[in-house]
């Protein structure tokens, strides 16, 4: 048992992968809370796909994929924010149009590059075991910047998320805050691409916060749970993939999904089991003490 835990640490690439997974877990777990609370999952998915041509272009220019990904991620974030202000197209359609177009651009670009084809898999599904020391440093630096900006503006983001009308009437630049939040989401997705790839990144941004929301009714606690579950899923997923010889990205996502299912069933207040018990007790209660069935209400 102990051997199974220690064994992977013998390899440098596993050490780097575990470190990278931890940083990304904290980042995705925290920022993902607002993706979930604001209902931005579709935008998140769009961002992950829309950065694809940026990645291809960086590759063609022989630069780090981060630059191209950032450029296209920011472009998409801005485009989505602007389009959601006009009322000509529904927001969903607007996002759909943008990200499909960008992804298609990536596909067309890549079809001209013979050498790229063998790396396509690692781009779409991630290659956490191929993380270099330099990648790790870049992830840590960008992650730190994202978290510093995020926590500095947490009060404002919370206000805009819960009651944008209050935020506007209090004189906050709501649109600007919206754009900044989307840029943070975009940066989070871009630095995490290497770990799990375009297709699966959404799971790291959405699944742990969704599980965390079931476990608590407080935002700070939700962010802590979410980060913790994301890191746990990352580390456990890496161990499993190491021993079972499965694809790392996919395994990590499946572990996260497992955490979510456990929370869904067993969470203390919002879980299926406790909801069922509460409903039964409520019925029982209502039958005997509260003929009006107001057992759950505060008086």
């Amino acid at each position, binding site marked *: 048992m102990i051997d199974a835990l220690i064994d992977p640490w013998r390899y440098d690439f596993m050490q780097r992968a575990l470190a990278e997974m931890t940083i990304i877990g904290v980042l995705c777990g925290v920022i993902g809370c607002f993706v979930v*609370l604001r209902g931005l999952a579709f935008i998140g998915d769009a961002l992950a796909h829309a950065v694809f041509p940026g990645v291809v272009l960086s590759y063609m220019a022989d630069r780090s994929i981060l630059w191209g990904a950032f450029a296209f991620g920011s472009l998409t974030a801005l485009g989505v924010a602007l389009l959601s202000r006009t*009322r000509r197209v529904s927001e969903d359609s607007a996002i759909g149009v943008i990200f499909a177009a960008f992804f298609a651009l990536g596909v067309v670009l890549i079809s001209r590059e013979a050498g790229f084809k063998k790396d396509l898999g690692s781009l779409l599904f991630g290659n956490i075991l191929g993380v270099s020391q330099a990648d790790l440093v870049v992830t840590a630096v960008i992650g730190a910047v994202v978290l510093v900006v995020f926590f*500095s*503006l947490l*009060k*404002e983001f*919370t*206000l805009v*998320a*819960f*009651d944008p*009308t*209050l935020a*506007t*009437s*209090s*004189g*906050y630049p709501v649109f600007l805050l919206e754009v900044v939040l989307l840029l943070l989401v975009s940066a989070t997705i871009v630095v995490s691409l290497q770990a799990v790839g375009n297709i699966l990144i959404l799971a790291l941004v959405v699944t742990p916060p969704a599980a965390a*929301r079931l476990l*608590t*009714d*407080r*935002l700070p*606690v*939700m962010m802590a749970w979410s980060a913790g579950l994301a890191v746990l899923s990352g580390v456990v997923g890496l161990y499993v993939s190491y021993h079972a010889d499965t694809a790392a990205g996919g395994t990590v996502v499946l572990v996260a999904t497992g955490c979510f299912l456990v929370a869904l069933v067993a969470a203390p207040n919002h879980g299926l089991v406790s909801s069922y018990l509460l409903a039964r007790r409520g019925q029982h209660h209502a039958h005997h003490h509260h003929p009006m069935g107001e057992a*759950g*209400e*505060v008086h």
Partner: protein
Amino acid sequence: MTISPPRSRPALRPGPELGAPDSGLPGPLICEGVSAGYRTGFRLAGIDLVAGPGDVTGLIGPNGGGKSTLLKALAGVVPTLGGTITLGGRPLNRLPGAVAYVPQREEVNWDFPATAHDVVLMGRFRASGWWRRPTKADRALAARALEEVGLGGLGGRHISAFSGGQQQRIFFARAIAQEPRVLLLDEPFTGVDSENREVCHDVIRRFAGAGVIVLMATHDLDEVAANCTHVCCLNQRLIAFGPTKTTYTAANLKATFGGRVAVFEGGAA
């Protein structure tokens, strides 16, 4: 970067009817020829009204008549397309901390992970400025505001654990925490039972007593007759505005609602 508090009225240009410039009172809220809404959608035009400190003005009119639009224009949420809105002689949109807007309950997400205390504390965010967290004093003020609406001790509960009427009281507590000069209420009594309604009335009276300018949009005509000092009748445009006694009349109601309201003689009973 910090949001500076409203500057101490340097460019004050009081008209003769505005009262002494240095009385310390906020001075009246004046709308002159205000039109508001969206260029392509609904628009409200030609609104003139004056509300002084302590006035409670009821906005009435049919659905789609522009009650909410006017409130939202005053709150700066819906763009003003023309005219001027001033408070004590200064443009209202230059005094962002001056207005507290209590939205309709369904406008916010009650599943948001926040307690009653968290929501009330949001009323202090602007006063704390950018980056900074609310201070102990802010927290104490939020707790007091919850007590004032009769929810003291329940601040730690999640917002979805309250009844509709109690959620409305949480919003009122948040408005108290904002320490506004103008209070805007959008259908504050919809779906609120009589017990909660009484608490809300009490809070409105205390706001008015403290010299806050209160405007509320409501469907409930009896509410207006009984509790508002002024009435503003809206149907895409201003039909009538004035003290309840002289404005809440059968003729004005008929002009506002068309034939769709049972008109009773004498207006306010």
